[in-house]
């Protein structure tokens, strides 16, 4: 009985706590959205989006939808945005966007779909404000007993099982498709095992049966240009990197500058630092 009363109250009143939560989280979400659009740095952009998603998640929780709220945080904030960040970090901060439009008619279609989406959202919100009768969701007895989480589970696996499975099939197809398109197998004929490699070496399919001897660094000096000595005392020519003989000293100018600290450094956040235009 009290639960029913509570539910009715929830339907008509907005409690103080809820109002405070809304007026804190709403502006935060909005600020996150604006920040995402206007931030110069791609990673900052992603972080602003995380802020928006977190605020939305907490708003769901305040609205008595804890399951939805936490799933929002786990799936969107935790997994999807993390993958975004992953890619952004791999690309590096300073990689510039291409200004050439590859897709023809992109702007037109973007406008059309954008307007369409806006219409849909406005229609949904309008309907939510007028037609939908609010139902109290608080407590164990909400939603016809058993609580929210139970009812969501039941609805997902009975009434909505077909759309649910269809969505998962679609997602899996998309993921597998992306992998098939994006993955290039470098070992087409199968990777050779260690045993096969050893045998191939002894059969003479490689230059020499053993690996190259290491240089004599630290034996007599700490220069990598020191060759190793063979057991009979002779110099092992192949222990020296070919680069050392082949590199003209002029080529090492850049390295010298780098050691002296006079060279403009590469982008420290990119894994494959591009050369700066000089």
């Amino acid at each position, binding site marked *: 009985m009290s639960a029913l009363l509570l539910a009715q109250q929830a339907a008509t009143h907005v409690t103080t706590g809820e109002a405070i939560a809304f007026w804190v989280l709403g502006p935060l979400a909005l600020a996150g959205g604006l920040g995402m659009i206007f931030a110069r740095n791609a990673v900052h952009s992603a972080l602003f989006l995380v802020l928006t998603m977190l605020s939305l998640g907490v708003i769901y929780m305040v609205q008595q939808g804890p399951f939805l709220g*936490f799933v929002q945080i786990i799936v969107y904030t*935790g997994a999807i945005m993390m993958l975004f960040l992953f890619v952004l970090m791999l690309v590096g901060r300073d990689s510039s966007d291409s200004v050439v439009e590859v897709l023809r008619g992109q702007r037109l279609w973007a406008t059309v779909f954008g307007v369409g989406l806006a219409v849909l959202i406005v229609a949904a919100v309008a309907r939510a404000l007028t037609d939908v009768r609010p139902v109290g969701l608080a407590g164990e007895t909400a939603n016809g007993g058993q*609580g929210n989480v139970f009812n969501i589970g039941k609805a997902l696996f009975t009434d909505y099982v077909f759309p649910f499975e269809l969505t998962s099939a679609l997602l899996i197809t998309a993921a597998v498709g992306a992998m098939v398109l994006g993955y290039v197998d470098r070992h087409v004929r199968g990777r050779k095992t260690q045993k096969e490699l050893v*045998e191939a070496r002894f059969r003479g399919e490689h230059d020499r049966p053993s690996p190259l001897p290491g240089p004599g660094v630290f034996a007599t000096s700490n220069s990598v240009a020191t060759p190793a000595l063979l057991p*009979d005392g*002779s110099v092992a020519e192949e222990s020296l990197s070919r680069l050392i003989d082949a590199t003209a000293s002029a080529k090492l100018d850049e390295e010298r500058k780098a050691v002296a600290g006079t060279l403009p450094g590469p982008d*420290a956040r990119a894994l494959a630092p591009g050369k700066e235009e000089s």
Partner: protein
Amino acid sequence: MTRAQLLADDPIWLILIKAVALLLLGAVATMAMIILERKIVARMQHRPGPNRVGPNGWFQSIADAIKLPFKEQIIPDTADRKVYFLAPIMSTIPAFLALSVIPFGPEVSIFGERTVLQLVDLPVGVLVVLACSSMGVYGIVLAGWASGSPYPLLGGLRSAAQVISYEIAMGLSIVAVILYSGSLSTGDIVDRQASGWYFYLLIPSFLIYFISMIGETNRAPFDLPEAESELVGGFHTEYSSMKFALFFLAEYVNMVIVSAFCTTLFFGGYMAPWPISLIDDNYFNTGWWPLLWFFGKTWIFLFVFIWLRGTLPRMRYDQFMRLGWKVLVPANLVWIVLVVGMRALRNENDISSSTVLITIGIVLAVLVGVVFLLPERAPKQDGPIVPVTGGGYPVPPLDLKVPDKADLKPRVRRRREKAAVGAAAGAQKETEQ
């Protein structure tokens, strides 16, 4: 009254007391864990370990905790300062948040107020822990990126991939527990284990959870994001002072949480272990006693963390990811299907457990019989391609051509001759001595 109702009745001062206790618990457990880890690992490696500060060095952690925040803080020039500041905070706060849904004990009386030893009991308590762990990764990843140097970046990338992969395995291993208990609330899960702890009812789930909880907390043998021998310090290489301390705190609080969560899910939470639970109609499962059982079980897991670190070498990254995606996740899916099938069978028809056991026994017997009937595969014979000596090691080919001295470049020949002369002279000197 149910747990949720009891907790909803808590006055503000009680909630504050509980929250402060949780904060203290995290910090104190971290300090205790650090000194214990150093002591235990030292003992495993036959060395004394810290033995200077306080009796037998037991105050070392306190000294470190005082020292760390007062150290100089160095911020790299290339760092993205705002994100650099944000990262340690983002990794610490979720770690402490997750402690709030762990049920530490049953109904007790605090200053005359009946309550439960738990801060909140949400109907989705299990998801809170998962959400917090997925938010905690942001701290690590952003730290790696914002430091502005390659090693932390690599550490951050590794961590992102690792935690996402192992979170899937972890989430799936929890599914079986949820199916069995029929609830997502941590308190309910503990209550449902009164008839039997889940670690032996759901052995595969427990094993997978255990492996993935070590992967999730970036601990040895899965500590690839901070692998010292590969990445200097990984994501926190460029951090110092209080910020580094926060990362440390987050890591250890995370360990406490996954251990406490494991206790809750699989080891009956705060319930007394078997022989003790028989005493006096389970007297030791009431009042404040369960706190002892809970922390006892949790510390066993924390000890296993240390033990693993002292025992196992670090895994290679690709092997580690393969274990997660190709072993743990598929095995988990199969296991969930089995559990669902069993439960559906038991719900639909009135099959007694003995019938189920007999059926399983028959199926197993048939499988074993089939395995025995299969012809054994003959060991693969290698062709006599490579000459092998008695020891089983391949030897160089008999027609190995030693390069002729005349073929060498003149410069090399000169160098060799000089070296040979030097060696001969050295040898002569040695014989003279």
